[in-house]
């Protein structure tokens, strides 16, 4: 196990540098004047251009720029926006909101998805089963921006049950609807995964044994069946948390949540290249580490899985 973890961590290093290099190249190496439009209506003063060129090593070829950038980054210096604001400050301000949203989405999708999956997995081919199957298909087919818009319009603008937009510090109760929108597609996956897993395991020998021993239904399902069936579901939820923490550009945009997704989108549109790269580096790192964690969790939950 220890050797496996070490090997996976070593594998992470080239992937991390590769992904950030790719983004760095895409953001900085595009043709065009990086200072266009940065100083309002007039051209940037020479001193500013000189200062920024020196600061970001813009005269050097881009692979060298990347090396300089990563050097700064590894000492914890994310750099500054063109306006002089610390990028680490932007991340520190926006990330908690994204985490809150991800957490709300995860809880909603886990609770609804698991309930639906367990109920239908135990009673297959009934009315409820077909209803859930059809509704998961619909959930899968509705893109986030459509469901976000519709819910915002119906609940926010028409019925006035919720605020159409989320306020600055994003309190939890305002995040329920955005969280539902964000988690809706994964909710369908969770429900289907749970259903398949329960259906498969309920035919297994250990469940038959448990029933034959005369254990009450509650114990057979709650202890024997659920424990074994939930392993794939928990790993799915882990992977999903990884991608949810990568920022929900669409959902945060629709509900005006001050999260990392909205920050990065704004940075891309205004060509704040340093900000884009800084945020992407953090997000890629979170994503990779979460995936690693999920793989390890899988082995911890299911002793039948052994890493060499």
């Amino acid at each position, binding site marked *: 196990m220890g050797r496996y973890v070490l090997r996976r961590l070593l594998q992470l290093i080239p*992937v991390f540098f590769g992904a950030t290099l790719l983004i760095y190249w895409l953001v900085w190496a595009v043709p065009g004047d990086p200072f266009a439009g940065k100083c309002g209506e007039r051209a940037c003063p020479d001193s500013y251009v000189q200062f920024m060129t020196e600061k970001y090593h813009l005269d050097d070829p881009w692979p060298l720029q990347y090396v300089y950038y990563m050097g700064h980054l590894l000492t914890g210096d994310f750099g500054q926006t063109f306006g002089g604001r610390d990028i680490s400050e932007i991340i520190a301000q926006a990330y908690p909101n994204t985490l809150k949203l991800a957490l709300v989405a995860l809880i909603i999708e886990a609770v609804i998805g698991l309930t639906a999956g367990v109920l239908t997995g135990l009673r297959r081919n009934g009315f409820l089963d077909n209803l859930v199957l059809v509704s998961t298909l619909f959930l899968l087919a509705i893109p986030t921006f*459509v469901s976000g818009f519709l819910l915002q319009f119906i609940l926010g603008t028409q019925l006035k049950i919720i605020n159409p937009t989320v306020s600055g510090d994003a309190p939890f109760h305002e995040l329920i609807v955005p969280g539902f929108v964000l988690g809706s597609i994964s909710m369908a996956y969770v429900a289907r995964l749970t259903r398949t897993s329960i259906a498969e395991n309920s035919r297994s020998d250990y469940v038959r044994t448990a029933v034959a021993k005369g254990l009450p239904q509650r114990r057979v399902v709650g202890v024997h069946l659920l424990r074994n069936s939930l392993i794939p579901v928990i790993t799915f939820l882990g*992977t999903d948390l990884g991608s949810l923490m990568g920022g929900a550009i669409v959902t945060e945009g629709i509900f005006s949540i001050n999260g990392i997704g909205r920050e990065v989108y704004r940075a891309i549109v205004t060509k704040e290249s340093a900000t884009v790269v800084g945020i*992407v580096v953090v997000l890629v790192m979170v994503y990779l580490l979460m995936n690693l964690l999920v793989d390890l969790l899988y082995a911890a939950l299911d002793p039948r899985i052994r890493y060499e």
Partner: protein
Amino acid sequence: MSDPTSGSLVTTSPAEQPGLVADSAPAGIGAPQDKRDKPRGLLGDAWYDLRHKPLFWISAGFIALFVLIAAFPFLFTTGSPTESIGGGLSRSLEGPSGSAWFGTDIQGRDIFARVIYGARASIIVAVSATLGTILLGASVGVLAGFRGGWIDALLSRLADVFFGIPFVLGAIVILFSLNPRGAGSNEWKIMGLVILALVMLTWPVAMRIMRSSVLAAKQADYVVAARALGASNSRIIFKHLIPNCLAPVLVYATILVGAYIGAEATLSFLGVGLQSPVVSWGVMISDSQQYIRVAPYWLLFPSAFLVVAVLSFVMLGEAVREALDPKLR
């Protein structure tokens, strides 16, 4: 389904999921047993199964309809997607009526005609991106799985790099860098770039699916037998491995078309994908968002078409998966 990279999680069984021990047990893609006398191949068996499923016929019917709309939009509407009814702004933002079934948008254009003509861009992008993803991903996957060793390690890490970039974020960065706002560019160039972005960020999923099935099939007796009989590498790959490893990728491809229709619309909605004057569902939804209070129908009709199109492909993928995966019977 705006994130195609998540689609794989439905189609792969836990043993095939990326990141786990890749050489684990074969994932049940072996030839299914026949119930009748005449021997059928895997695909023949699946087709026999599919013919008896209403889900398959419903989704196939919808898909045929959408393809027909995309190929011959003028059969369905006499209106023009880009010109205002009556030639001016006199009929701007009118509700649904006899002459304009779905109403008109802010410039007085017929929403029904635009929805019909919008199918073409969405479907072209989704289908070409799927073909590209599967071709690229599957070939790299076969290569990595078959060769093994350092080639496998190198290609897998390369796939990890692209997989490590969150989908929507990566697509925005790619499209924004390669096609900056305000740069006048033609319709085909934007469509090509959107396809490129989708393929670039999704091929690792197809690659991993293919790689794990090849790894499992490589150990199978029929491959060992073929090799013992002196079959060349190319013969083993094309005659034995590819036909036997195709099923999971095929299922993924079907679902991917639906996911890409949604992804294209999402990118257009964010303003980095297709743009006016191209007519697509995503562009229409994006245009309508300012007017949702006065003209909700402008948002509703393209969204409905979008959802039905995605749904058809997801349902088709579901039916194909049930037919191809013997474990689910």
